[in-house]
């Protein structure tokens, strides 16, 4: 079958002597790739290269309103980053989101498994839990501020505490954003709330594509759902789980939007990206900011390589 197809192709090609088509082909490849590849190089690889260059010298932006870059003498930005607690301590905040990303994946797997067995109303619940991942980040920040604000502003939780405890003012309030632990726990929760549904839908989709024959056999063997989940579903979607975990971990290292919107000036909740942007755009230290950006990139690449190793080990 295959050889005859190949033969037909050859015959067709010979029938249409191809100097003209060959030329057309080259033109098309050139025309179709020109803009997309130029955009990719111009807005991804060229900036990356210039960022590496910035990171090696002490570039400064002299004013934010009329940004002009000036290179001072070479300074060791990387050394500065690693030796100055002010700069790397923000990685501690990433730890909260890192733990959060594991919880997020576990929850997503749990709910996807529930949906796999098609409970009544499953579509409704799936939709409701997926919805947050489509919402505007600024609106999400606002919703959670409404919940966690002080009772003076009518924050939901603190107002309830105030009424239950019979306080007059805000003296019994829980100050959610005045402690490093509490503030980052809340922001991590918001992050899980926002992105869990996304993972859940991906897991549910890949579970549906598992061959049903496997389950038929398992049911005859009397395997219950938990056993089916452990022995059939998990191995079958292993790679999707890895992928989502890597994406979630990368996401955890790159959080900025929600804390930037909810707590723009709170030093407890400043994430690595926020610090990097702050150093670069607010302080104008482009060189140091670039060095921090490159460090993050190396971390992300390291995690990607780790994933590949894990995947290979899992395949054995």
């Amino acid at each position, binding site marked *: 079958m295959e050889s005859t197809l190949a033969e037909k192709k050859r015959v*067709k090609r010979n029938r*249409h002597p191809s100097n003209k088509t060959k030329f*057309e082909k080259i033109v*098309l*490849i050139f025309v*179709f*790739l020109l803009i*997309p*590849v130029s*955009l990719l190089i111009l*807005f991804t*690889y*060229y*900036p990356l290269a*210039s*960022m590496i260059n*910035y990171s090696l010298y002490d570039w400064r932006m002299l004013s934010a309103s009329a*940004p002009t870059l000036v290179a001072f003498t070479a300074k060791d930005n990387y050394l500065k980053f690693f030796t100055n607690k002010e700069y790397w301590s923000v990685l501690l905040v990433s730890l909260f989101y890192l733990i959060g990303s594991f919880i997020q994946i576990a929850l997503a797997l749990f709910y996807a498994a*529930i949906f796999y067995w098609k*409970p009544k*109303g*499953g579509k*409704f*619940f799936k939709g*409701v*839990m*997926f*919805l947050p991942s*489509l*919402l*505007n*980040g*600024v*609106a*999400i920040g*606002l*919703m*959670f501020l*409404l919940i966690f604000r002080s009772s003076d502003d*009518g*924050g*939901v939780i603190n*107002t*309830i505490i105030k009424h239950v405890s019979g306080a007059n003012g805000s003296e019994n309030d829980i100050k959610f954003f005045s402690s490093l632990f509490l503030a980052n726990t809340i922001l991590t929760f918001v992050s899980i709330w926002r992105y869990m549904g*996304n993972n859940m*839908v991906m897991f549910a989709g890949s579970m549906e594509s598992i061959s049903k024959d496997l389950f*038929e056999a398992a049911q005859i063997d009397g395997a*219950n*759902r938990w056993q089916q989940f452990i022995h059939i579903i998990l191995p079958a979607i292993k*790679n*999707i789980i890895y992928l989502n975990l890597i994406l979630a971990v*990368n996401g955890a290292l*790159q959080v900025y939007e929600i804390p*930037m*919107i909810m707590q723009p000036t709170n030093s407890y909740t400043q994430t690595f*990206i926020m610090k990097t*942007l702050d150093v*670069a755009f607010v302080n104008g230290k482009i060189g140091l900011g670039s060095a921090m950006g490159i460090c*993050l*990139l190396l971390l992300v690449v390291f995690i990607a390589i780790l994933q590949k190793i894990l995947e290979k080990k899992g395949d054995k």
Partner: protein
Amino acid sequence: MIMTSPAFMAKKPVAVRDRSVGHLVWVIIEYLALAIGALVALFPLYVLLVASVKSNAQITYSNPLLFPDVWHWENFSTAWFFNANSSSTSESMGMAFLYTAAITGVSVFLSVLFGSFVAYVLSRFDFKGKKIVKVLFLLASFIPSITIQISIFQLINQINLFNTPWAIILLYSGTDIVSIYIFLQFLDNVPKELDEAALVDGCNYFQIYGRIIMPVLRPAIATVCIIKGVAFYNEYYIPSLYWSDHYVISTYLDKMVGAFRTSWGAVSAAAVIAIVPTIIIFLLLQNQIYSGLTNGAVKS
């Protein structure tokens, strides 16, 4: 597969539903978990909705979990007509919607077009450097897009696009590996013989793209449009960095949060208005969104 199907059908009536106590416990746990999940997902939206129809006094003094006795619908007009731009005559929420729609529309169109270009070339032709192109797009997905804004900002500034909507459009319209994979999955299912038959009929490669590839890609295009459209509509940092003189929906909302520190009813109303379009899109295109996400994920 076909072989097992009759056996499967014969088995089905025999497969009795498990009605043991263990099963009942599982069902209870299942619905408890679903109820908790749904409540947690909806609670913040409910709180926002309640606040959006309350006056300042009601927000501070009334029960935060209940809708008020008197609904303050004027919050919505306050939100809509708030002028975000003090240096211009009026930049209301309607204006922000227009800007957002224009930027999102143009960017989604270009991004989908370029994505289909790359997918067509990668799936149908062999040429020198094909592998390099693939790898370039793949590796780009590892680069943290926000941190490289540090140097993209200098570039945008050098080409004089700082503080223009074109900066945003330019950054959005590139294609990415996920879109390319979604397109490639569709194209791999189309036999290449179809292209060759068209060639014999006298079509050139450009016509094949227009007449064969594009129609086949239609469902994939819809999927990518939704994913990209929602992402661009919600994007906050890129517009705030490159177009700070004017306001798209996200930056308009953010500006309101800053300006109305004391009047949260109106801010909440603005947030409600901002999320209504996404909820409508979701209700209409739910299945398309799900399948798009799954297709994008199977890429590895």
